[in-house]
């Protein structure tokens, strides 16, 4: 079949020469657009929150602080992320595999369920009938429509995941790819499997809670609720991790011609995610009295470390693949010549590198430390926890998703990226602001400042709770960083909205030239040097060097491991101040 003889249900991508199913493309578009709308709501909420936690400003009254905190959590952690992940599943299943989508009309039905569900949740939260925060722990009770909204959203998402599996089955049966599925699709499949684990637990917790809210059952056991809810609430973030890593591999290939160092190793790491990462949910229950130490330690310090190992594998293979890819393009000078010559002005690349570094150095190290049962006692429910998960979910996942968007705008929406200069700056602005937020939260939390707390000055309380005065500095850091980060998020939304709805249409990608509004990976695809085989043989020669073909990454990983050890053992030292032994 020639490229021009596809039926009208498809179009050809001028860059990748892949055929793109138009129905799948529309589903990608609507999911991405709704995701950005949720990001807008969540970002406005974020601004109100940081300006309240910043004690010198203290913007919102108590009721609105907690209401907006719930809105922020649902929009950022659920709606923004999961709508985007639905777009990723449609993209990976159909575009990357050259496949037709399974039952696309049913895809619209599922999208409708998710949309109606999210609108119900928004309506209940904004009207003050669901002031139960993101976790909605009983005996706090929301309006039944809140729980119904969550259930509808989850059912729709589960439906899309089912369609993704069906699409993969169709692709395999119709032989649209040969051998194993591509690694990026494998990562998306991992995310989809974790989504099933997550959403099944979601059904187990929210259906009884809904029945309780309408009076059909007497009550919900708060401890069982917490167990099941965190298998939803934390595992939902593990879907993000898998999807984010898949996007790392994709952006690495698109922006700098990254290679996959070893398919077996990378796929093994994804399988470790499937088997063990959801157990990280137990982190949230480490100080709960109902569970024994064996359950806590097996879940968070034995099996969960298999998932940590997987993240460290990806944390090595992604930058090492980028380094090797750059060296094979001829950038072979020194330890970090490949990094200096990287396309730092490409928002896809800068997002990728910022996501990898902050997720690994900040999110990963703090996550493992906080997930240690003994150390958790000095960190639980302090601002250290949001300090950690903003580094993973926002600086890691959201930044990666933003980077992918800069490539999806021309490829899927067929529009140039608007406000190109701003787009080049946006990842740095957003990630820089978030780094300030995360640092402020982590240090404030280290001084005992609680999370989810409207007023740590306890101004009307009958007792005095003094904090070290330095916490005001860290809370101000959260406020200032938050303003910068929200400006970065709003810039991204502005760029996305202008590009999608009013952007300049682009259907041809001239090669070998820089085009304003088009990331360099699309007009200057990162091809390997003509003597790449020679370079590769030289890099892998026994006498090449003790640190192998990717010495720069080995050094960076060494720095990471040193930072990890330092932070981990510092926390044990801090714990020893609390628990006087001997």
């Amino acid at each position, binding site marked *: 079949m020639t490229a021009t003889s596809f039926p009208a249900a498809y179009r050809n991508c001028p860059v990748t020469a892949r055929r793109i199913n138009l129905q799948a493309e529309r589903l990608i578009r609507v999911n991405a657009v709704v995701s950005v709308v949720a990001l807008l709501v969540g970002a406005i909420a974020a601004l109100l929150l940081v300006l309240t936690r910043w004690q010198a400003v203290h913007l919102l009254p108590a009721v609105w602080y907690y209401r907006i905190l719930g809105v922020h959590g649902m929009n950022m952690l659920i709606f923004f992320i999961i709508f985007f992940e639905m777009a990723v599943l449609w993209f990976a299943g159909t575009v990357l595999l050259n496949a037709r989508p399974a039952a696309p009309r049913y895809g619209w039905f599922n999208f409708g369920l998710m949309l109606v569900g999210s609108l119900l949740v928004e309506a209940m939260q904004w009207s003050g009938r669901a002031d139960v925060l993101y976790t909605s722990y009983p005996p706090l009770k929301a309006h039944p429509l809140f729980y119904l909204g969550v259930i509808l959203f989850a059912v729709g998402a589960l439906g899309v995941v089912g369609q993704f599996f069906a699409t993969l089955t169709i692709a395999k049966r119709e032989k649209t790819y040969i051998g*194993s599925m591509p690694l990026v699709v494998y990562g998306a*499949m991992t995310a989809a499997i974790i989504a099933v*684990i997550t959403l099944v637990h979601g059904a187990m917790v929210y259906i009884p809670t809904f029945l309780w809210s309408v009076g059909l059952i007497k009550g919900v056991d708060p401890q*069982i609720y917490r167990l099941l809810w965190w298998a939803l609430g934390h595992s939902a973030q593990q879907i993000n991790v898998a999807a984010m890593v898949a996007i790392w591999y994709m952006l690495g290939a698109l922006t700098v011609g990254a290679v996959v160092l070893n398919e077996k190793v990378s796929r093994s790491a994804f399988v470790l995610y499937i088997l*063990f990462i959801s*157990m990280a949910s137990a982190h949230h229950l480490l100080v709960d009295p*109902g*569970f024994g130490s064996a*359950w806590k330690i097996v879940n968070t310090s034995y*099996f969960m470390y298999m998932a940590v190992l997987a993240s460290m594998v990806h944390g090595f293979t992604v930058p090492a693949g980028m380094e090797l890819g750059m060296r094979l393009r001829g950038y072979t000078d020194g330890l970090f010549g490949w990094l200096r010559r990287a396309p730092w002005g490409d928002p896809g690349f800068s997002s990728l590198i910022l996501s990898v570094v902050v997720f690994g150095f900040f999110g990963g190290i703090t996550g493992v430390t906080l997930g240690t049962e003994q150390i958790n006692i000095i960190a639980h429910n302090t601002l250290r926890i949001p300090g950690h998960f903003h580094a993973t979910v926002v600086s890691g996942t959201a930044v990666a998703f933003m980077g992918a968007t800069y490539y999806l705008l021309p490829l899927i929406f067929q529009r140039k990226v608007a406000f190109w200069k701003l787009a080049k700056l946006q990842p740095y602005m957003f990630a820089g602001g978030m780094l300030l937020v995360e640092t402020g939260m982590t240090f404030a939390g280290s001084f005992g400042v609680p999370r989810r707390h409207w007023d740590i000055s306890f101004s009307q309380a009958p007792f005095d709770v003094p904090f070290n005065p330095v916490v005001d500095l860290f809370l101000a850091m959260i406020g200032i960083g938050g303003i910068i980060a929200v400006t970065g998020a709003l810039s991204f939304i502005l760029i996305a909205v202008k590009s999608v709805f009013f952007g300049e249409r682009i259907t041809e990608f001239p090669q070998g030239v820089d085009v304003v509004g088009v990331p360099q990976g699309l007009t200057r695809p990162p091809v390997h040097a003509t003597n790449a085989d020679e370079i590769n043989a030289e890099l892998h020669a026994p006498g090449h060097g003790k640190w192998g073909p990717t010495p720069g990454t080995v050094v960076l990983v060494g720095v990471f491991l040193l930072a990890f050890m330092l932070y981990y053992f510092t926390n044990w030292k801090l714990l020893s101040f609390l628990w006087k032994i001997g």
Partner: protein
Amino acid sequence: MDPSPDDSQESVETPPLGQRLFDNMYLLLALGLLVMFVIFTAWGMWEILSMPKSTLP
């Protein structure tokens, strides 16, 4: 030694066992659900439900 045409044909038709296992998404889905439900969910539920009830003072 270079593989003979027959060998390469065979390797195309039958991937190694590990690759076949990794490519089986339904198996991975089942294993993912099983491990989580046994180690986290069922064990955790058992811990809660087997707690003795506290006596009122």
